[in-house]
């Protein structure tokens, strides 16, 4: 008998739908490709397969017993059924077992509204518990780490958190302990769950056993709306879902993106959503003595226009790599076309300590994008030290800054005061705002329809929350209003139009439009997709 080459594809039927998948695929993943959803708790795409919850049982023809779909691999000609009475009965039984000692704390449980137990109860159990004995009581609300609270009663022992810590964080801080209905998840005695990626365990815990101490009780999940966005913590630009309510950002959740962060975020980045809310500049302001007093937006724009007209020829420009490509492009066009300035200084947050998972040293999300735009528009780029030097030796009188972030580890930054006039489009009342003379509130990434480019050259969208608690505007809008006061034609119809002009002028973005950038982002022209080891456990 000759050994046939391994087939490239396996054909099988799942719920009467024909599926074609590579050999070695699990039944659960194969079902996804034909739109069949199989309920599961313990399975996670990026973790090893534990197959301990048994929620995913399906019927496979010629197999005497039900098969866990997360673990069973496809085979040629396999016939899988996921809705037979036998499967339904198994699902009901699994759910009933899970609820035997479950407290059903939903009114006080932060997971309510996004809980798999709740969802699957409504979908698959649909019957009341027949359990009449006393429930086993276990430890509740234990702070097991700086960011996380663990509730042993709610835990269904799926070990997703344990596997994440061991396989992705590579720091096995968690383990299941105890036996039978006494078992729970625990850290080693005296140890804490304090790995800098620990909050991912809260994300993947299918129930309310692990909750974030930071988010706990602040908001019920069903009030939150989602905006696809990116983390602006560092130049990795991890994909996130920004959850917000009435103009306040409440948390970042990891958004799966195989090109960037798989399913994970670092804790520092995840908690960085707070910068969307904190210390925001709500209205335009001008300096009167030591104070910044509120000013009408129109008045601020008028003053900015006047100053820039008068000081023409002695203007320096700074930009923070925290701003979007749209804002950066508008600023550089404004420099070239209206101010006649061909130099730009990059400010931004100070570097932080990188790690070997996701976090990069550059704590700014859009340095690459701004560099690409500057190069294409022929702008010379200088760093923040050059800007400080210019202030010290009076190289120019007026500073126009877009984005107020500066490295807070350089004490000389206060020398920026030496500029005669500092006009700043500031997100927060920090950084350059503190030395500013005239400030216009700048919309952050969560208030803009825009793009950012991560260090590897991936162009990703950021989307607005839709409601704002301040009067912040994008820089392209503010700059066109300023130009209007300078009697110059400089207008954009909207964010899409800014990006269209940008894509035309900068080859890196050639051929892209806001609508054409997919959820996972698009590689800029000439950006080589890096050799990336996925943060997933190989199967």
């Amino acid at each position, binding site marked *: 008998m000759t050994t046939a080459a391994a087939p490239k594809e396996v054909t099988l039927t799942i719920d009467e739908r024909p599926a074609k998948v590579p050999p070695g695929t699990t039944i659960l993943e194969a079902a996804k490709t034909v739109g069949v959803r199989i309920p599961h708790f313990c399975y996670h795409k990026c973790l090893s397969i534990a197959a301990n919850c048994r929620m995913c049982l399906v019927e496979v023809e010629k197999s005497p017993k039900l098969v866990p779909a997360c673990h069973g691999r496809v085979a040629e000609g396999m016939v899988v059924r996921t809705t037979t009475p036998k499967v339904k009965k198994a699902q009901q039984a699994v759910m009933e077992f899970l609820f035997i000692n479950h407290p059903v704390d*939903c009114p006080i449980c932060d997971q309510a509204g996004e809980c798999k137990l709740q969802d699957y109860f409504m979908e698959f159990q649909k019957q009341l518990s027949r359990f009449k004995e006393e429930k086993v009581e276990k430890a509740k609300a234990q702070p097991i780490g700086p960011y996380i609270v663990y509730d042993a009663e709610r835990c269904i022992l799926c070990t997703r958190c344990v596997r994440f810590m061991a396989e992705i964080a590579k720091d096995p801080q968690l383990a299941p302990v105890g036996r039978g209905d006494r078992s729970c998840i625990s850290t080693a005695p005296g140890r804490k769950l304090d790995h800098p990626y620990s909050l991912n365990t809260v994300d993947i815990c299918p129930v309310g056993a692990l909750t974030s101490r930071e988010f706990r009780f602040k908001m019920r999940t069903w009030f939150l709306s989602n905006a696809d966005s990116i983390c602006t913590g560092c130049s990795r630009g991890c994909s996130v879902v920004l959850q917000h309510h009435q103009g306040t950002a409440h948390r970042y959740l990891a958004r799966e993106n195989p090109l960037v962060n798989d399913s994970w975020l670092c804790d520092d980045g995840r908690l960085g959503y707070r910068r969307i809310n904190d210390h925001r500049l709500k209205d335009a302001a001008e300096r009167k003595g030591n104070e910044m007093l509120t000013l009408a937006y129109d008045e601020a724009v008028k003053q900015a226009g006047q100053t820039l007209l008068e000081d023409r020829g002695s203007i320096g420009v700074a930009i923070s790599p925290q701003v979007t490509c749209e804002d950066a492009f508008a600023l550089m066009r404004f420099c070239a076309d209206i101010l006649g300035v061909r130099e730009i200084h990059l400010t931004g947050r100070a570097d932080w300590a990188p790690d070997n998972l996701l976090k990069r040293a550059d704590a700014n999300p859009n340095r690459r994008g701004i560099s690409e735009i500057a190069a294409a528009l022929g702008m010379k780029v200088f760093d923040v030290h050059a800007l400080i030097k210019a202030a010290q030796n009076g190289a120019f009188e007026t500073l126009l800054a877009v984005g107020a972030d500066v490295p807070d580890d350089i004490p000389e930054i206060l020398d920026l005061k030496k500029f005669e006039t500092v006009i700043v489009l500031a997100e927060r009342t920090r950084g350059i705002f503190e030395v500013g003379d005239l400030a216009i509130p700048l919309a952050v990434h969560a208030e803009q329809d825009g793009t950012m480019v991560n260090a590897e050259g991936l162009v990703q969208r950021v989307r607005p929350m839709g409601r704002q608690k301040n009067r912040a505007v994008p820089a392209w809008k503010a700059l066109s209003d300023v130009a209007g006061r300078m009697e110059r034609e400089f207008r954009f119809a909207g964010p899409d139009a800014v990006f269209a002009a940008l894509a035309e002028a900068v080859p890196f973005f050639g051929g892209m439009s806001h609508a054409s950038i997919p959820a996972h982002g698009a590689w800029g022209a000439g950006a080589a997709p890096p050799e990336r080891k996925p943060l997933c456990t190989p199967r």
Partner: protein
Amino acid sequence: MKYYIDTLKGVMVTTRHLVKNVLRREKAGVVTVEYPEKKLTYRPNFRGLHRLTRRPDGTPKCVACFMCETVCPAYCIHIEAEESPDGRIEKRPKVFVIDELRCVVCGLCVEACPEDAIRMDTAVHPPPATGRDEFLYERDVLMSHKGAGPEPPAASGGGRRR
């Protein structure tokens, strides 16, 4: 001409009812009560001013689950939650405000509450006030209201369910 006759007919009907109602009240079935000289007794299911019920130790039964705030069609309930020092209750309202002026007295909050923590059994109307702010009833005020009917049974801990 027909127009005037029809108009007159209409006026006659109105006048007849007026005379009947004023002179022969009981027979006409008029239900108007001479408030405040006379007062009706409310039915037991009358929905009055809200109150927050308490545990035997005086703390609110409310666990700040936001069900009432979620269901309220008039958006008149505002809750802020905090950690409770009692580990089994876990969650309690730091702020609980009802805007009685916005409340449409539908009683849905009472229906939604899993803890029997909010009730409308006080049998009183929100008293008149001179400013809108005075209709914002805070947690402690709501807890001080007395129910007209029997008290709810003492609660078990937190949201525990069998």
